């Protein structure tokens, strides 16, 4: 049932020990939230899942991350194909300076889809999937920069859906957005759950409580507690978790 297995993962930025002995299994087609104070390693762990950390020179990793029982740090793994299986949405909306259509079509195109009709279809499905289609269907040729921040973020979600990933990584996807856009994206995340495994980083505990099935609480690079969301927020095992969720620090 679990799709991601993390085992004894340690990560260093140079000498700085950013992830300490992290182990967890993440269930397929569920929503998992990472919470914890800023700088505790949530984004770092998220980036190990699609190997975006490869691009930071100082990073050293030990331990194993497996997706569908394949260790993704195995040297024979093709990073580009791995990332095709894993969509990612970033903290700041980051659409390309291209049209709405081209933004969504970018992924399918680089992965070899040329057929115009097929692309049209993918773009429409993805935009519908990201609950943006009705707002932009007449403006597909217009620049993505004309959209509002919330729309841009949904466009980025659509762009990630267009490569047909199995897992969707979201790094504080609503922290740059207003409350109404945030609500829309949270609803969207709920809808996507049926088709995708979603891992979302948030420093907003209410958000974690609202959207996720399971929650992991991080502190200084360690997983302090990882359990069902309702359990973690109502009856945490650890004192540190309790301190955090009751707002005593962080």
């Amino acid at each position: 049932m679990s799709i991601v297995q993390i085992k004894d993962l340690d990560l260093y930025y140079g000498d700085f020990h950013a992830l300490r002995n992290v182990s967890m299994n993440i269930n397929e087609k569920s929503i998992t939230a990472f919470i914890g104070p800023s700088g505790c390693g949530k984004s770092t762990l998220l980036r190990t899942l699609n190997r975006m950390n490869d691009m930071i020179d100082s990073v050293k990793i030990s331990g194993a991350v497996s997706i569908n029982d394949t260790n993704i740090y195995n040297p024979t793994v093709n990073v580009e194909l791995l990332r095709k299986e894993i969509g990612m949405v970033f903290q700041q909306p980051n659409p390309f300076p291209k049209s709405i259509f081209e933004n969504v079509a970018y992924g399918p195109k680089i992965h070899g889809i040329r057929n115009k009709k097929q692309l049209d279809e993918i773009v429409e499905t993805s935009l519908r999937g990201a609950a943006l289609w009705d707002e932009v269907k007449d403006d597909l040729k217009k620049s993505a920069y004309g959209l509002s921040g919330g729309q841009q973020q949904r466009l980025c979600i659509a762009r990630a859906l267009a490569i047909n990933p199995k897992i969707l990584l979201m790094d504080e996807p609503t922290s740059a957005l207003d409350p109404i856009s945030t609500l829309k994206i949270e609803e969207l995340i709920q809808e996507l759950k049926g088709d995708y495994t979603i891992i979302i980083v948030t420093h907003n505990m209410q958000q974690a409580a609202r959207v996720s099935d399971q929650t992991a609480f991080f502190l200084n690079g360690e997983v302090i507690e990882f359990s069902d969301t309702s359990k973690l927020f109502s009856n945490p095992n650890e004192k540190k978790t309790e301190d955090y969720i009751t707002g005593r620090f962080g």
Partner: protein
Amino acid sequence: MMQLDAEKQMRRRKRKNTIFHILFLSSTLFGIVALALLLIQILVDGLGWLNWDFLTNNASRKAEKSGIKAAIFGTLWMMSITAPLSFIIGVSTAIYLEEYAKNNWFNRFIQTNIANLAGVPSIVYGLLGLTIFVRVFGFGKSVLAGSLTMTLLILPIIIVASQEAIKAIPGSQRNASFALGANRWQTILRVVLPSALPGILTGSILSFSRAVGETAPLIVVGAVAYITTLPNSVFDKFTVMPIQIYTWANLPQEEFHNVASAGIIVLLLMLLTMNAVAIFLRNKYQKKN
């Protein structure tokens, strides 16, 4: 089947990436190789001719007796006017534009104007110098005419470099000074300029080296090629190193090409020294921050 296709396609994309990686890398290496070839050739041809006599002889019709002394002194004479003058005018302009100028059409016009001046071909400055300094002001084909022409030529570069250096000083430093009751000029003199000075000096030295290497505008204002006496005043005729090199390079005899190479070595050494000083200043400054 699908999986196989995807892997095949992926291999193709990877291969394409590798090929282009090599192409881009070769493009970068092209410049380095060109530089190496140029230096090697000049060293091979010129080192044998480089000796004390070469540095202390004046120009001669015989290759063995040719020297670069008059040209070195000519360059030094010219720079002794060009360097301080362009520095004062350039830094003053930069201070005005960065610290005083309001964002109105006139100051924007000055800024655009400076940007455009930087793109004017150097030979056009030669025509300007020939008409204004040589003829209208009557300085003749003198050190003074050449120096003033070069001053105008490198002015835009010094201005822009000084502006960058001044811009890099955070506004909080100025505010701290104002809050202590300093007026604007005191703030500029005691806070802004001391912090910006290393940057300004670096930029200025680099533009001086541009002046040392320029040839065409000085030919137009009439710096002469064949000269056997050193200038005694700014109204004397003169030559500079690049023009001396040009003259040797233009002669058909092979030996003179070697003499030209020796001259180029001296010129490059002088430029290298100037650049080293500039880089030294820059590094020293960067470490402080």
